[in-house]
């Protein structure tokens, strides 16, 4: 067996290394599911206890922007898949081109999200001491906004981490570190990126669409 530059000292061969990295990423995503699962469970309980407030809260979210963002994220998953495919083919240029597209789409998502946040600040819908709700007060509306910010905030935080990882991959690709035999990091980050997208696929109906 020839020594490959990317083979770490404690693995027997690249295949063992690839399988370990894959399994590691899947396990990490399971921990992420449990992490988000906790806040989803809390959301469900609070929604069940305050149906009117949560329903009223939903009315204050912008479904149009949410829908656009959903499309943008799904698009970014597509470009991510292209990048992984380019990795399998050992096409370094294809990797960095598609990763840049992914970053771009991720950036668009965050900018739109930022506008939504700004709007909520403007309307005084940010939970905490500054919260003031104009119109008829319904119990639980602040709680809904609280969950909205926690859940979308955690999601956005994961996206920012993801964008950082994508940039790191581009640097690696430019340095010629990926070959046909070795593109584990692209695949691993790809799994992570898809996971973050899927979280949004759950968040969107739960926050924006339910009882809108």
């Amino acid at each position, binding site marked *: 067996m020839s020594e490959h530059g990317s083979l770490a*000292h404690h693995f027997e061969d690249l295949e063992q290394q690839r399988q370990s990295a894959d399994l590691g990423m899947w396990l990490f995503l399971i921990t992420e599911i449990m992490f988000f*699962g906790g*806040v989803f469970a809390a959301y469900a309980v609070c929604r069940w206890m305050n149906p009117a407030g949560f329903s009223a809260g939903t009315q204050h979210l912008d479904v149009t922007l949410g829908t656009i963002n959903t499309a943008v994220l799904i698009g970014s998953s597509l470009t991510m898949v292209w990048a992984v495919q380019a990795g399998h083919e050992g096409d370094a240029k294809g990797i960095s081109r598609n990763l840049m597209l992914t970053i771009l789409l991720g950036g668009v998502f965050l900018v739109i999200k930022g506008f939504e946040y700004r709007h909520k600040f403007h309307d005084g819908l940010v*939970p905490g*001491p500054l919260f003031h709700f104009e119109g008829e007060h319904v119990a639980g509306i602040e709680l809904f906004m609280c969950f909205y910010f926690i859940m979308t905030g955690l999601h956005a935080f994961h996206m920012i981490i993801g964008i950082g990882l994508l940039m790191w991959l581009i640097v690696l690709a430019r340095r010629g570190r990926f070959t046909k035999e070795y593109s584990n990091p692209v695949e691993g980050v790809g799994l992570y990126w898809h996971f973050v997208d899927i979280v949004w696929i759950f968040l969107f109906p739960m926050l924006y669409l339910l009882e809108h």
Partner: protein
Amino acid sequence: MGATTVPLIERTREHYLNVRYGIKSWLLTVDHKRIAILYLISITFFFFIGGAAAVVIRLDLATPQGDLVESETYNKLFTIHGIIMIFFFLVPSIPAVLGNFLVPIMIGAKDLAFPKLNLLSWYLYVIGGSFTLWAMIAGGVDTGWTFYAPYSTTYANSHVILTALGIFVTGFSSILTGLNFMVTVHKMRAPGMTWFKLPLFVWSQYATSIIMVLGTPVLAITILLIGIERLLGVGIFDPALGGDPVLFQHLFWFYSHPAVYIMILPAMGVISELISAFARRAVFGYRFIAFSSLAIAILGFLVWGHHMFVSSQSPYAGMVFSLLSFLIAVPSAIKVFNWTATLYKASISYQTPILYAFGFIGLFTIGGLTGLFLATLAVDVHVHDTYFVVAHFHYIMVGGAIMGFLGGLHYWWPKMFGKLYPELWARISAAIIFIGFNLTFFPQFLLGYMGMPRRYHIYDPEFQVLHVLSSAGASILGIGYLIPMVYFIWSLRYGKDAGPNPWQAKGLEWTIPSPPTTFNFEEPVVVVEDPYAYPTDDEPTWPQPEEAHV
């Protein structure tokens, strides 16, 4: 093999401890064995801080009026005792020290699957620990280790957020350790090392890792929600604002009950190794013990509601959780019976590690059986939040987990450092720990049954006799813990060389030199032997001394 080139090796053999020197070679190491040593030092540090808090608590409880400290300080003391002992000692103890050191060696690998991640885990642990220490120095926290809302979110005037942040960060250390172990066991086994050739210690580490990976993230999000609620004054756990405090209890115990098994399962793995090594027998019912570890890991996730029998949980939910809690006694009992069956009619060598194993079996059995009392709805209503509960979980945590940790440390110390500790002192301290432990905690069962509530600073004078007994026991226990500390450090310099296999035990770790080299194995490992392939009953079990004359 270059047998001709190694005559000097016995004196200056290169191993993982002397391969490089200097602080940097330790702080930047990716060697699983060195990281294990880093953990050993850090958890020992936290153990003695948590222990010091316990000493003050017990001294204070010697009198019913609590003469030593203010009530407020008392609350902070039991909080810091709980937080440090659970999150910074018990949870990482066996996995991060013994597991880190042994899992790769036991399966014939050079290292864990992700060595850098392993180092990162240690740094996260240290960062989390520093936050918690900072919170202590800044004035402490008084919510109890359970952080129950709404006290922790609304009313407590102590450093809740800082402490919570420390636990949050340390949680990721635990998650990454578990993830690393799981991938390692799946992907790094040497050729021939099938699942059923794995030592039972590895099985228990694997089961523990499942809990770390699935449970700890829920604790992380729960702590995050507590922090947000405290910062912003929103009401996820506050009924006045539409939330629910019992929701917090559900989320908290969804991790924190399985966490009990994070602490006890690795100890059970250690005990399986010790029993087999000193009874010179294959463990009776290997597969039963292996699968009972997995059963405990899985069932452990379904019993959290037994912490909420009196917290407005519906009686039906209570009945289900009660039944499930009874069920978990089955795999635990399977282990105890199998260990006893292994010992039955064996030619046992009564050295220090197995003394700890005996201690474990007895104390864990008492702790486990009293757990059944608490899983019974009607009895729990009576003894809920009393010293009965305190005694129960200390029998599991101290009598079980710490006994297992110390037993394992005594068993593998010669492998880790290549030195033997003084056997007589070790036996004496094992006896002192056993006596001190029982004197400390058995009276607490009686106290609890008589109605003494836990966490009370000032108590009814009728309880004083039992409290004094308990405090006396605690001082004996404290001495018992200090002695090993002294002779272990002493042995590093003055101990006799251990040689590769001082116990004549089976297992891959005993086939390599002590201390091992950086990559553990000089030659590729191929496993053919079953684990615990000790001679059968017909053959002599111990090496016979050479007879000079007939």
